[in-house]
């Protein structure tokens, strides 16, 4: 069977035209067919998946679905704690670590009746890059397995694109949801900082860390976000904002929506590949055709945002992993060791200056967006690079397009905007104001429904 998105599957399950067990078995068949190539899972949980699916089916037959996530096969990035299931953060350091409790996001998804297919591949502690000196190999891109998925939510990107799961949890400290979403041709939302609890998820850099949904479409991300969003006293950064109905905000039109384009990010500061530029230009045309107005905005150069976020990230990561850096440095992968070395070269004063700069940059974006609902730019500079072409010091290679919105905490979504000359996906990034995640999803959903990019799946699974 072809694997539907969450919205379609939920509708079929509610109408009792699709059984959660049947859907789960179809996903498991895909897992068996693709895993040797994709390495999207560090730990498939097949028995748990079938048990969850049977329980969901029985409950739905008895009482109807609890909600649209009931009976939906999902995966969790392996930095998310799962009660009774090994959680290693992709690292030798946590081999054999079996948490006693679910992370908040895992518990919320379980309570919604989802089917857990397994723990998904991640860069070690959500850092570094594709490493070949870890217990498990890195995930490969289902559009072409010779190519990278981006990271660090690499397994989630690969498994969703391949239709092995309908959605999964990603985490994003500098672009780790949106990067894999962009390069794997799916939708990935970094919600507003504080909207989704981080309790029970391994930290990377506390003031930049976000948890969010990755799925085939923006609508599916909206459905998943509904289950994830909300205050949690166990996360000190958790917001108390009222949670709207995200799916109801998806109107399909953009009448009255004010779109800004930060053109200099992707045309001057770091010129993207032509396919990405075409995707952005087409997206602007689609937005106009759906009723939006489009204007151009200018902020500080992309390199400033990247520098600010990188210095904060280097320092906060070094602090989070200081003890192991001193006592078990050689148990980390080479890539993560290299990142941790950087902590020695960034002073306390450097960190404070970066935090001061963040405040200025936040204020700048706030002013730039005063008369706008969303701004857009690239999600990634081009198609996915080959697996062996990722620089070891990628942090200093080029600025990234996603970091500015970790620096500000604003919600940001990457959706597929076409395909490049190598046949791999390219993306556009849509950014909203704080706690206006529904607007971001609305724009992404309207774009997807007005274009045909969602009709194509990787040949690997066709």
């Amino acid at each position, binding site marked *: 069977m072809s694997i539907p998105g969450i919205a379609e599957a939920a509708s079929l399950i509610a109408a009792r035209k699709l059984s959660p067990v049947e859907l789960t078995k179809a996903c498991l068949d895909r897992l068996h067919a693709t895993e040797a190539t994709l390495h999207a899972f560090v730990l498939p949980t097949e028995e748990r998946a079938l048990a969850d699916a049977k329980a969901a089916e029985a409950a739905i037959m008895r009482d109807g679905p609890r909600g649209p996530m009931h009976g939906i096969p999902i995966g969790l990035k392996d930095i998310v704690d799962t009660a009774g299931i090994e959680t290693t953060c992709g690292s030798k350091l946590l081999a054999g670590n079996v948490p006693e409790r679910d992370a908040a996001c895992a518990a919320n998804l379980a309570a919604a009746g989802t089917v857990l297919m397994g723990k998904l591949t991640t860069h070690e502690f959500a850092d570094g890059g594709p490493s070949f000196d870890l217990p498990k190999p890195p995930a490969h891109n289902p559009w072409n397995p010779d190519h990278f998925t981006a990271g660090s939510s690499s397994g989630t990107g690969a498994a969703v694109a391949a239709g092995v799961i309908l959605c999964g949890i990603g985490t994003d400290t500098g672009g780790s949801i949106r990067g894999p979403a962009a390069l794997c041709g799916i939708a990935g939302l970094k919600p507003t900082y504080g909207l989704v609890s981080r309790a029970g998820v391994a930290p990377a850099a506390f003031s930049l860390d976000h948890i969010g949904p990755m799925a085939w479409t923006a609508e599916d991300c909206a459905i998943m976000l509904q289950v994830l969003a909300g205050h949690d006293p166990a996360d000190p950064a958790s917001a108390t904002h009222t949670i709207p109905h995200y799916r109801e905000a998806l109107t399909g039109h953009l009448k009255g929506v004010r779109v800004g384009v930060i053109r200099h990010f992707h045309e001057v500061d770091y010129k993207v590949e032509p396919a990405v530029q075409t995707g952005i230009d087409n997206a602007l045309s689609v937005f106009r055709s759906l009723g939006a107005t489009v204007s151009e905005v200018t902020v500080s150069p992309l390199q400033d945002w990247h*520098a600010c976020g*990188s210095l904060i990230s280097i320092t906060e990561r070094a602090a989070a992993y200081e003890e192991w*850096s*001193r006592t078990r440095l050689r148990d980390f992968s080479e890539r993560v060791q290299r990142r941790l070395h950087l902590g*020695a*070269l960034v002073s306390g004063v450097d960190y404070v*200056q970066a935090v*001061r700069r963040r405040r200025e940059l936040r204020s700048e974006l706030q002013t730039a967006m005063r008369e706008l609902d969303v701004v857009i730019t690239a999600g990634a500079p081009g198609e996915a690079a080959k697996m062996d072409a990722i620089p070891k*010091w990628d*942090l200093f290679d080029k600025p990234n397009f996603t970091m500015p919105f970790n620096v500000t905490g604003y919600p940001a979504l990457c959706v597929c905007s076409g395909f490049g000359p190598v046949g791999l996906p390219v993306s556009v990034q849509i950014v909203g104001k704080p706690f206006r995640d529904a607007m971001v999803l609305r724009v992404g959903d309207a774009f997807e429904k007005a274009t045909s990019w969602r009709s194509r799946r990787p040949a690997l699974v066709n």
Partner: protein
Amino acid sequence: MQPTLTDPALEYLLQCAGLTLTDAEKADLKTIHDGLTAMKARVRQPRGRMAELAHSYGFTPEDLT
């Protein structure tokens, strides 16, 4: 402009951080010093020393009793 990272300076910084690196790793780390210096320059905009962050303790009623 930040001075070049000398070997003794790098040794001192690594010692403070409690990191023990091989000679190859130290040489590798020195290759990105210019990149890191450029990043540090980008977060140092002209601003007065009074331009500090707002800091709030968020005292709760329980703190005040």
